[in-house]
């Protein structure tokens, strides 16, 4: 009997999903509730579980877009008995007794099948990824689902699991930029366990031969330029690291150096730097005049593209205000220790700002809305995006349902997301969505700025440094810690009354945090 598995309803507004990735192959035996594939909607990615045990028959390919209710695959439940014998070599061999296993299991049997691994769809807006590093070397034996490589997209870093068990043949080099669906590697599929070091002679020799025959193996000599090539490289103002050597073990030959075309270097390693030392016109000129050229990372490219498009496609302007930070500072001073003791997280400004913002957004919903075609989408919740400066560039993770979080809940979430951002571990889900953004240029010492909206959101609040300024309070000059705040907003849907009132409301809430408690 066959069971059809259909696309489940995944959310009210979602009418169609895309098959992100099949974790199982056609004809594989799957257990009930086992994850068989990943589906992506325009909001998020989710996993699809097998609704029964049996043999999988795939009906939709990776990248296909299906409507809710469409058939994804069939599971042949009758094949269960057979499959447990034929489809699972591990069990079969285990049952054949341990002695036999020791001799045979360790040696994988090539099946002759070559599995091609392609760049999976990793997210809706992602069209290109960069192969950041290979965890395995060419010719290595890889287990199914073993992580073989790391891939960077402009949003996040992914681990790439082996889609089959066998010998890895690397196609794409580290640093290569690849489009979705491009060939990454092939796996010469084999059955049985991994080869052990103490295996038979011929096996070892086979491996060795495979190693020396290939130029991609890491050798100390890889990238070493021959004397003539070295001279050409120097004269052309390029570096050996830019050139792929075709000589033995990746050595750079004279021809490699002569034919290298820096303008066609798009496929090359992005992290490698081409240092061009400019020849001084006269030898008497003092001082170095180095120029460095680096390829833009895909993250940087996306950031730049999006920022410009926001500038062009929205009616963005900024309103300012100033906040007396003394009350919050006093409050923090008073409860800092206790807060830390109780929640094991420091009480920072972020929680106050997030709280104030969520409260103000409730009152001015258009600031929390966004344009979708001819409609305005209002959000009953507040997902606050926080701009984080990460080593790879600007990241904007999201604090979900910030309106429901307590102070410690917000602080913990900020720490968690910032840490992940710093380590480059943020997932796409953690960066998508977001209805409003907070950015703090104050940590770098910014006094005042006009932030750019994080599209498709409609507003962004810029925080700045806190400086003691003379303020007129009740006809007297007082020195108070002041922060200027800036709200950039999309005038297409937010009017001056709303934006200004929103910012004034934020100011009120911050200057008198008791209001946060009472909601007044």
């Amino acid at each position, binding site marked *: 009997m066959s069971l059809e598995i259909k696309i489940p309803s995944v959310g009210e507004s979602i009418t169609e999903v895309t098959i992100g990735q099949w974790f199982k192959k056609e004809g594989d035996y799957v257990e009930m509730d086992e994850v068989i594939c990943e589906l992506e909607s325009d909001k998020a990615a989710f996993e699809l579980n097998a609704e029964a045990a049996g043999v999988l028959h795939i009906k939709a390919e990776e990248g296909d877009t299906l409507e809710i209710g469409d058939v994804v695959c069939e599971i042949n439940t009758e094949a269960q008995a057979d499959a447990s014998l034929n489809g699972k070599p591990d069990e079969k061999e285990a049952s054949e007794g341990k002695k036999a296993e020791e001799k045979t299991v360790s040696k994988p049997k090539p099946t002759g099948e070559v599995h091609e691994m392609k760049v999976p769809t990793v997210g809706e807006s992602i069209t290109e990824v960069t192969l950041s590093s290979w965890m395995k070397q060419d010719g290595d034996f890889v287990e199914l689902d073993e992580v073989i490589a790391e891939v960077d997209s402009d949003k996040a870093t992914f681990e790439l699991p082996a889609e089959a068990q066998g010998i890895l043949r690397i196609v794409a080099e580290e640093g290569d930029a690849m489009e979705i669906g491009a060939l990454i590697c092939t796996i010469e599929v084999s059955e049985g366990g991994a080869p052990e070091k103490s295996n038979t002679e011929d096996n070892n020799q086979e491996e060795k031969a495979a190693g020396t025959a290939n130029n991609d193996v890491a050798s*100390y*000599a890889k990238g070493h330029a021959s*004397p003539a090539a070295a*001279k050409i490289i*120097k004269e052309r103002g390029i570096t050996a690291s830019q050139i792929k050597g075709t*000589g033995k073990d990746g*050595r750079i030959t004279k021809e490699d150096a002569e034919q290298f075309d820096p303008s066609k270097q798009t496929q090359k390693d992005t992290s490698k730097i081409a240092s061009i030392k400019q020849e001084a016109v006269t*030898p008497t000129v003092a001082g170095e005049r180095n120029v460095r050229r680096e390829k833009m990372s895909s993250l940087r490219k996306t950031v730049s593209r999006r920022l410009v498009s926001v500038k062009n496609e929205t009616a963005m302007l900024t309103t300012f205000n100033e906040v007396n930070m003394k009350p919050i500072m006093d409050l923090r001073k008073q409860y800092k220790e206790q807060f830390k003791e109780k929640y094991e997280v420091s009480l920072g400004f972020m929680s106050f700002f997030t709280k104030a913002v969520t409260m103000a957004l409730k009152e001015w919903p258009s600031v929390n809305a966004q344009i979708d075609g001819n409609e305005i989408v209002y959000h009953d919740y507040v997902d606050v995006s926080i701009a984080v400066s990460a080593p790879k560039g600007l990241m904007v993770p999201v604090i979900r349902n910030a309106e429901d979080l307590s102070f410690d809940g917000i602080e913990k979430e900020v720490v968690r997301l910032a840490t992940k951002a710093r380590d480059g571990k943020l997932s796409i889900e953690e960066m998508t969505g977001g209805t409003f953004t907070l950015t703090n240029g104050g940590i770098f010492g910014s006094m005042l700025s006009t932030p750019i909206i994080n599209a498709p959101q409609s507003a962004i609040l810029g925080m700045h440094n806190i400086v003691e300024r003379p303020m007129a309070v009740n006809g007297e000059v007082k020195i108070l810690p002041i922060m200027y705040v800036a709200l950039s907003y999309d005038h297409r849907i937010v009017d001056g009354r709303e934006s200004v009132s929103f910012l004034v409301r934020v100011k009120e809430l911050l200057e008198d945090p008791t209001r946060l408690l009472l909601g007044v």
Partner: protein
Amino acid sequence: MKYDVTVIGSGPGGYVAAIRCAQLGMKTAIIEKYDTLGGTCLNVGCIPSKALLDSSEHYHNANTTFKTHGIDLENLQVNMDQMIDRKAQVVKDNVQGIAFLMKKNKIDVHHGLGSFIDKHLIKVTNSEGKTTELETDKVIIATGSKPASLPFIELDKQRVITSTEALELRKVPKHMIIIGGGVIGMEIGSVFGRLGAEISVVEYMDEIIPAMDKSMGKELRKSLKKLGFNFYMGHKVTDVNATSRSVTVAAENKKGETEELKGDYCLVAIGRKPYTEGLGLENVGIATDDKGRIEVDQQLRTKVDNIYAIGDVIKGAMLAHKAEEEGSFVAEIISGQKPHIDYNLIPGVVYTWPEVASVGQSEEQLKEKKVAYKTGIFPFKASGRARASMDTDGLVKVLADEKTDEILGVHMIGPRTADMIAEAVVAMEFRASAEDIARMSHAHPTYTEAFKEAALAATDNRALHI
């Protein structure tokens, strides 16, 4: 006359620089103090010494191994006059060859002493005292070196001599005392040792040819002892006294005991010193360091931006082929190219028999740098080719990186190793591993198989013929 480049000195550094400059389209002049071109190398160094080494080796073989080969000779004689005359002819042919090369490349040769007037003006004073002034854009100093001596030694050039005079001796010495166990001393000692002279070597260090891997000196000493050399290692010469007929050398050993050696010639071969006399460096503000060398930057440019210096007159090994590389290098630098010299890969050679040759790092250097290395040694005793020619002294040693197997140094002592070392230089320029060499076919039977075998031994101790 106005030139793009003027080269001062026509030794292997100078004339190569001049040719390369001319090839690159520069109007070039070369100044030579002596009547013939070629400098020390061609006139009183490399070439004449090799001529005499070959002649004396023939005599030595005729006298010692021919009988075993099945060749009986009677009345074997050394004809010293003929030997020196032949050498002179070899030198003449070579220096004329250089003169031809200058003409071919349209390089103006000015004979006379070159001296800076200023950085763009050089005065050439010929042997008759006539002067010419050359105007030039760039200058390459390639004035080379002269034999060095010790302050208390009076070089009378009759009994107390340098290599220059030794190459002109028309009588085989009875007992030649050589001060210095370096390359020059060993080569000239070999010439006269083979011809029947008693040779005594007094060396301050503990080993001869001390700049090379220690094992090379040890092996060479064994071979030279067979030739009748006496070695006084760790001896410091304290006095040299010459009469018209004899010379006495006093040397002190490490215990402070003084030994007196009496001979008919004393060869002072303690090295060479840079030669800049009369060059007028003071007129352009170039100073020399404590060893008399001209200081240069990485592009071999002196303190004065249009003046370069190459060869023995600057730092580095005093070798003709090092000077040649620098000659080409500077010519290319001047024309805007960006050449490179890997000084680690300039081979060193001693033309004794067995010959000694090496390139890269010695075991001592690797130990000092704490580099983990493996060693592969193959003795010529086990080489079929060496047995056939009765040249079984010596060995080939390959030093490779413990982890990567990259060849870090090659040291050879044995027949024709001076020629064999070229393979090691090529291998190392391409950063070959010991296994790379081990996997290349070497013609059989040749001496070069010993290199392959040593490489096999270094790879993982799997030499085939031992």
